[in-house]
């Protein structure tokens, strides 16, 4: 199916991705061709086939509910774009 400009805008909203105006036409064209390509899947007969989520069909392991990590926020915050008094800063969102 052919995507429209509006679809790209909506997807960009959902994915929290800003798409530049000069890129949108190219995105429409390429995503349309990717979706047309994966549409081959519709031809496969998958009646009564179980979807496969994990290659080895294993259940997730459980671990004891114990504290294993220590507080290292100082170390982690070295990667933060903006920190003040040990807090991560983001733009003001509530007036």
């Amino acid at each position, binding site marked *: 199916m052919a995507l429209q400009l509006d*679809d*790209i805008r909506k*997807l*960009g*909203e*959902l*994915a*929290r*991705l*800003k*798409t*530049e105006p000069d*890129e949108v036409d190219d*995105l429409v064209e*390429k*995503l349309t*061709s*990717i*979706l047309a*390509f*994966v*549409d*081959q*899947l*519709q031809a*496969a007969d*998958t009646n009564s*086939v*179980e*979807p*496969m*989520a*994990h*290659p*080895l069909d*294993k259940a*997730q*392991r459980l*671990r004891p509910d114990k504290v294993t990590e220590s507080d*290292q926020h100082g*170390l*982690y*915050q*070295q*990667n*933060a*774009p*903006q920190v003040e008094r040990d807090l*991560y800063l*983001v*733009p003001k*969102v509530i007036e």
Partner: protein
Amino acid sequence: MHRNTLAQSAAALKARTVSSVELTEHYLDRIERLDPKLNSFITVTRDQALAGAELADKRIAAGDDSALLGVPIAHKDIFCTAGIRTTCGSRMLGEFISPYNATVVERLARAGAVTLGKTNMDEFAMGSSSETSYFGVVCNPWDTSKVPGGSSGGSAAAVAAGLCAGATGTDTGGSIRQPAALSGLTGVKPTYGRVSRYGMIAFASSLDQGGTLTRSAEDAAMMLDTMAGFDERDSTSLDVPVPQLRAGLNDTLEKLTIGVPESFFDDGLDEKNATAVRAALGELEKLGVVLQSISLENIHLSVPTYYVVAPAEASSNLSRFDGVRFGHRSKTTRSTDLTEFYKNNRGEGFGAEVQRRILTGTYVLSAGYFDAYYLKAQKVRQLISQDFERAFAGVDLIAGPTTPTPAFSIGQKMNDPIEMYLNDIYTIGANLAGLPGVSIPCGFVDALPVGLQLIGPHLSEAMLLKVAHHYQRETDWHLQTPKGFV
């Protein structure tokens, strides 16, 4: 020194005919001199490498006989390295310094391997040519106008050019085996869950697997003997015994039947590539292997399946990059609300291919399309996996080409995502089914290397590497070196 295999270098270090500092300096000098032609490294860690080499020399002098002691290697820049920048080839992580080591990095360091630096790659491992990196295109040492393959193309180019003894890589749809084929190397993607994903930046979690790019199967076995094994920090890590791979390489080859999927040799395969791969299959027959034609009925759907499953998982995995606690934060745009803020950070931080995949993944997971795309792809994935299972009831391994063509020109496929995706047509099946796969050099087409791929049942790494090693005892394709990097 750099023409030695990793195994030969390790032996020379043990025999003390060379010190780790000498070997490390030799590689660092080569990187400085030759890498400007390739761009295979994003970060070179000269000081840390020399400090590591000195320590290794002390350990050797003290009688420590760890397998990789003093051997200079490189890590794909997708593996987190404490105190050393880990970029994943992205502007998003351009300044990111990991607070911890990936399990793979930790284990190799403990075994004494010396890290020379972090290798270039397609951004977030999304690509088959190493052209999507924020840090520039990687060139193929066999012909610098060609791509080295991807996404582990920096690791491939560095090993092929003799800039390190071996390197780590990751393989989500062929990202170790394809660059190995295009760069004349041995590439191993182990069984899903064999090598820990802890500290390996996630692309598609149900497909990602760490592995190796080396000159020989023996080198790969040495690295994997250290890298593989259960890790409680990876919830999908396999808690099963790991055989010592290197120890069994020279054992007699049992009578094996190898399946050849005839559809791998249809129109999509370059004729000259086909000739080289057929010759390699003939060589395997001389080793006593019996070849048998097989069919993998749904394998032609593996690329479309992958391009639903992988982007879906990627769109979820990459949602963590928002520029709040780490990662790129937009400086040029003032954001008026939180959504704008995220969109600006991510729009600037991610390159075009990553954005396309996130949007594709978002689409196939969105309301109204989930069943038609994502669920459908998971069902076809099951069919593809069952085809392999049926095949392995009759054969021990599967063999065929790794790629449809030898290395292609830089820029040639950048504007056509489908054309680029089809590079992985023979490799993706193993990822979807979680199977181990190996690519080994098996000839040249127009002076460019060609790869033979071997795929085995789950946990068959020992058999795969044994066959590869026996093949390499009889051939010398893997010992060829590119002219400009002798």
